[in-house]
């Protein structure tokens, strides 16, 4: 405490970049008009929203009219899945997903199961991958939706999205991907990848919290989720959150302009961290695919110790990270993702996720490599499981 904060939890959320805050600020004060109003400051708001929409569509190869702003990534997931399910239930009631989706997808699917839908949760391999073949094999005559995340938030594994998209397209089944962790971090083109719906959230790439977007390919049958006014062309009600939407646009513009350079930098931090920790510390295991992983993601399991304790001790050294331990997550079991890739409960409890970002440096990694072995050793010495 008192030391400079070393933030290594960018998958949880990021700070908002100064240029983004700057772009947002005028819309709180002088330019606060309601975008549905026809007077000058209302029209300015409308224009700002449409400019932002174009930045988003440009970034993913879509048309502006295919982008709908939401209040979060979670809302985008809920909308996409419930929206397709209820709009197409005359055609079928079967949904295909994986067992490592974010809760925003999993709990929505579970909700639909209670409402008469049938959901197949595809298992993943020890790296967290599903194969296109698994998806193809799971398709039934009543399948109406495939929803598979682009990249996993815990272990960083990137799925073969283009191949799955091709299968969905061939079979005429809608394909949604939760790209909340991917967008702004890896290049995505929704047309090339045959994606019909895609969820995004700004606070994962240096934009503000509380604003997401759903890409909906023109022609997709989708019922509304939030009913009310005629905003977002009548499809998503509520007074538009203009500062946040402007922030989304600015953040995605910055992220895509700079993607290669950014990735090279954080991949170097990632790879060095993985290599040195696995060399320095015994009884440690990398979770997730070694290559097909998000550029900034490191996920390691340390045997014999528990994640919350690890995080608290790192925090005391000024390092912010996260864990898949149940003790931190608010659920009975440790991370469903770590269990799904086959980790035993006791190992899953001892997992550490480090996700690098913009402001991380080699010195940050030095500091981590200095303190982590000591902390792990201390906790192991306190553990009744170690040397037993």
């Amino acid at each position, binding site marked *: 405490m008192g030391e400079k904060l070393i933030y290594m939890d960018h998958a949880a959320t990021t700070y908002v970049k100064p240029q983004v805050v700057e772009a947002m600020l005028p819309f709180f004060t002088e330019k606060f008009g309601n975008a549905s109003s026809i007077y000058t400051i209302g029209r300015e708001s409308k224009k700002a929203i449409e400019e932002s929409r174009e930045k988003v569509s440009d970034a993913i190869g879509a048309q502006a009219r295919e982008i709908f702003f939401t209040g979060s990534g979670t809302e985008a997931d809920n909308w996409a899945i419930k929206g397709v399910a209820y709009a197409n239930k005359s055609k079928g009631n079967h949904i295909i997903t994986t067992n490592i989706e974010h809760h925003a997808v999993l709990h929505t699917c579970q909700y639909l199961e209670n409402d008469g839908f049938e959901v197949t949760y595809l298992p993943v391999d020890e790296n967290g991958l599903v194969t296109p073949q698994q998806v193809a094999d799971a398709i039934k005559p009543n399948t109406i939706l495939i929803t598979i995340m682009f990249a996993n938030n815990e272990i960083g594994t990137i799925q073969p999205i283009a191949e799955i998209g091709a299968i969905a397209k061939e079979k005429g089944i809608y394909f949604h991907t939760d790209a909340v962790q991917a967008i702004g971090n890896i290049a995505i083109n929704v047309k090339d990848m045959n994606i019909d719906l895609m969820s995004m959230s700004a606070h994962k790439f240096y934009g503000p919290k509380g604003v997401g977007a759903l890409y909906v390919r023109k022609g997709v049958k989708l019922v509304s989720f939030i009913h009310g006014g005629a905003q977002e062309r009548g499809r998503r009600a509520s007074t538009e959150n203009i500062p946040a939407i402007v922030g989304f646009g600015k953040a995605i513009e910055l992220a895509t302009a700079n993607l290669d350079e950014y990735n090279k930098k954080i991949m170097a931090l990632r790879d060095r961290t993985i290599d040195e920790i696995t060399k320095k510390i015994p009884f440690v295991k990398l979770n997730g695919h070694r290559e097909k992983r998000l550029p900034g993601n490191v996920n390691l399991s340390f045997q014999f110790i528990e994640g919350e304790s690890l995080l*608290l001790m790192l925090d*005391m050294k000024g390092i912010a990270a996260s864990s898949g331990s149940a003790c*931190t997550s*608010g659920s*009975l079991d440790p991370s469903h993702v770590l269990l799904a890739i086959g980790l035993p409960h*006791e190992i899953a409890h001892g997992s550490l996720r480090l996700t690098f970002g913009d402001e991380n440096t080699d010195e940050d990694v030095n500091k981590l490599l200095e303190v982590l072995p000591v902390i792990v050793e201390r906790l192991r*010495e*306190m553990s009744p499981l170690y040397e037993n």
Partner: protein
Amino acid sequence: MYSEKVMDHFMNPRNVGEIENADGVGEVGNAKCGDIMKMYLKIENDIIVDAKFKTFGCGAAVATSSMSTELVVGKTVEEALKITNKAVAEALDGLPSAKMHCSNLAEEAIRAAIEDYKRKNGLLGECDCAAACGRRCDDVHHDHGYDEDDDE
């Protein structure tokens, strides 16, 4: 989240370790649930003269282990059995409500160690065995912060 006292006992836990030839040893919890506490007691003339622990668990689990060992030392066995999880939590200036179950672990570990001591010394009544920890993962509501009363 945690009080300063909890953080102090977490960062500088008292009495970590094992006691060789302990008079009572109790282990409770389950690695599957993410928490195991092992308590070692040295007991002379019915008085607990030393206590040590090893814990696999969250910050609250470590801190309550540490505090428990401090609380039991100097107490008679019967006095020690009266230490509740609430008392341990209070001694730590409180725990977040989601973490109260971690202090159960400490209470149970003390009981289990004393149980072991009694068993070894033929002091157990007929049916006391049930008092030893039969806690399973599902007994613990690990759903930190939910309200069960009013949630769907």
